[in-house]
Each structure stands twice: as C-alpha cells, then as structure tokens.
C-alpha cells in the first residue's frame, strides 16, 4: 500500500432498484431538483471529480446520462458492486461514496467526514444515529478496500454494512443526527419533502465570487458564479473553504461585497459580488 494519501473523487450511487419506493429514487424531486442533481451538486462542492454509479441498463436514462458515469464492471449485486467498479476504474483514488436516497445530507456532514478521514484504514464512515451500525453509503472508501471487498464478495458477502463492521475502518459520530436519514417508501418521501420545505432557509441564490492572489491560485480560478444558500459572507467562506481548502484562516481575511468592505455577518442578496481579501502587501 502506498503511504501517499490518495486523492478523493465523489461517487453518487444511483444504480439501486428502489424496490420499496416503487419509483427510481434518483429522480425523486425535492424543492424543484432531482435527488441525483442535489447529491451531485452537494458532493461537487467538496471534491472536484464526481461520478454517478449506474448499472449497464441505466446509461441512457436522461437524469443520469448528462453526468460522468461509472458503469458496473464487476459481477454481483448491490451497492458493493458500484463501489468496487469505481475502485477498479481508478485504482489510486479514494471515493467519497454517497447514496442518492439521503435528502438531508449536508455540507457539514461531508466536511466532517473529509476532515476526519483516516487514509490508513479501509474506510471512514459514520455510525448510524439510530442503531449505531456503520453507514457504508455516506463514507470514504480507500483504494486498499478494493481487494478486501473482492474477497468479501467472493465468499458470498453482499452487505457493505457487515463488511465495515468486520474490517479496519474509522467510525465517526455524526454531529448532525438527521443528515443520514434515508427514505425508502412513498410515505418517507412525502415526509422528507415536507420537512425540507418547512426548514428551507431562504431559497438559494446566485452570487458572483472573485478571487485574487493566493486565493485565486488555491481556488484555481479568478471568478465563479455560485448557487448557494449561504446567508452571510462568513457562511459563504465556510462553504468555499470546504471545497478549496484555503490555507489562510478567515481571521486573516477581510471581505468585500459589491466592491466595498463589508462585515462577515452582513446579509447577502441575490446577485451580490463577493471578494475575500487576503492580507495586503502594496508598496
């Protein structure tokens, strides 16, 4: 095993049969967007390369077909096949695996997972807030898990949860107890839609972000337009910091909104232009 920490790609599992739901869970709509799009955009805020895991028969399904796909390439059934296919496609990459039936999954939950990841074990995962068992479908799977998963399946194993329980993994307590609530039935779908509608913070809005100097280099871009529900520059910084891992802490930065210095707690409005200002060095 290499001692180098593997880079992380994102994998949205969308190959399930959705048998109890009796409808494809990936295309269920919450707040105007399919769950597949919501999961994809969420993970994309944290890792640069994100793929959708599909079965061979799903590659032309329109919601999936527009995105980078990893088609099941190994024998067998269940989510382990999707994870193994991704590990086989990019053997030196670790995968942030997210199921597409987690409508409450949050930036904070992914931040905690990525921040506390231990690349020396086979996986970093949450324990369920309900039964204390490992949650394999919002977890980071390391390259070394490929061989162990193959051996597990060749011995007849199918359940990624049991796999995690039996192997060397890091288990974390989720700070947000509901982030991993999944939905399996039409009743749970209705409840999830109602809960999301009632908690919806102000609808998300578009902001324009410009980057300068060190932050431009670390973001890899000089500007972007972002759809976000961040209400203040402080929240926006947390969201962007999760994605770009800026080396400067917020305490060393100033912020400008619409080309004027602003407070970190100012309320942002749609269309605002935000600039984070690293320590200056004119003269």
């Amino acid at each position, binding site marked *: 095993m290499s001692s180098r920490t593997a880079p992380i790609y994102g994998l949205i599992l969308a190959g399930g049969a959705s048998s109890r739901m009796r409808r494809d869970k990936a295309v269920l709509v919450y707040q105007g967007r399919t769950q597949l799009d919501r999961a994809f955009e969420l993970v994309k805020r944290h890792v640069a390369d994100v793929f959708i895991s599909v079965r061979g028969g799903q590659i032309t399904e329109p919601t999936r077909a527009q995105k980078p796909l990893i088609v099941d390439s190994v024998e067998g059934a269940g989510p382990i096949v999707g994870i193994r296919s991704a590990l086989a496609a990019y053997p030196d990459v670790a995968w942030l695996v997210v199921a597409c039936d987690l409508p409450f999954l949050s930036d904070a939950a992914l931040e905690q997972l990525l921040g506390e990841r231990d690349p020396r074990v086979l996986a970093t995962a949450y324990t369920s807030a309900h039964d204390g068992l490992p949650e394999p479908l919002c977890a980071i799977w390391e390259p070394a898990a490929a061989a162990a998963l193959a051996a597990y399946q060749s011995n007849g194993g199918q359940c990624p949860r049991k796999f995690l329980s039996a192997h060397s993994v890091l288990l974390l307590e989720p700070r947000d107890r509901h982030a991993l609530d999944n939905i399996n039935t039409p009743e749970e779908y209705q409840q999830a839609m109602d809960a999301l509608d009632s908690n919806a913070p102000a609808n998300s809005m578009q902001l324009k972000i410009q980057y*300068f*100097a*060190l932050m431009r280099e670390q973001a890899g871009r000089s500007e972007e337009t972002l759809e976000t529900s961040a209400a203040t520059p402080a929240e926006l910084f947390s969201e962007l910091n999760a994605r770009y891992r800026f080396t400067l802490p917020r305490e060393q930065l100033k912020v400008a909104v619409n080309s004027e210095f602003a407070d970190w707690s100012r309320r942002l409005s749609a269309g605002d232009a935000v600039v984070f*200002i690293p320590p200056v060095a*004119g*003269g």
Partner: protein
Amino acid sequence: MRFRFTDAAIDTEAARRELLDRGAGGYVSFEGWVRDHNEGLEVTRLEYEAFQVLALKEGDRILAEALQRFPIKHALCIHRVGSLDLTDMAVWVGVSAAHRGEAFDACRFIIDEVKHRVPIWKKEHYRSGDSGWVNCERCAAAPRHAQGADHDHAHEPLEHSVLPE
C-alpha cells in the same frame, strides 16, 4: 487628484507637475523600489496584483484623509501592477504644501496607509525558484518570521506611526 494604477513605468516628472501650485513652497515624494532581498531570501522579481475597483476607492479615501489631516496643497499616489524587476519603481507618492513639515508628514502618512489598507498583493520570486505571496504564506512556512502579518517588504521596515490629529 485620484489614486491610480499603471502597468507601465511610473512617469514621475509628469506626476510631479500635477502637484504644482503657486501657494506651495515645497514638494516631497516617496518612491518604493523593488529590492533584491526580503527576510533572508534573494528576490529576483515581483508581481503585483490589485482588486482595482476597491483599491481605487480606498486609495482615494487615503488621499482625501491626507488632505483633511494636513495643511497641504495636493497629494497623489501611483502604484504599479504586473511584473517588476529589481530596481523598478513599485509605488510613487507625491505631496505639495506651503511648508516642508506637512509635506513630509503627509507623504509618510499616505505610503503607510496604502501599504496597510489598499487591496494590492505582491508575489515574490526567489533565486531558489520558489515564490510566495507576501504576508500570506511565509509566516506559516517560516516560523522564524512568525511575527504576524505586518511585515514590510520593499522598503525599510517602517513603524506604523501614531498619526497626528
């Protein structure tokens, strides 16, 4: 008279003429130059980058504050952006006033404030092939310089002086 940027050499003679005034008995200018070392490292060139929309506003506010604080006639500051070589002029400040004392004080005030407030960033390129954004990375990279984000680069270490009324 407005704070401004240029990506070409600063024309100090033309800038000085903007400060001429029949009531002025003197003129003080400050030039900041690119020097070949900083904090023990050999510097080979610099790049300046600015958030120009806000930098122009903040620069103008500093010039207006100088005119309010000191009995001077005119004040101007011009800053370079882009790539600069050793000995190039990075910044120019000029002040004209009836008397020399105020001109010196206002000139010092303007350069100090510009260095602390205007969103301009400086990337140093070193002989070793490394580079770094001044005040943004070397504190973390070099603990021996961990005195805070306030170190100075291109000129003598200035204290941020206590300002007169």
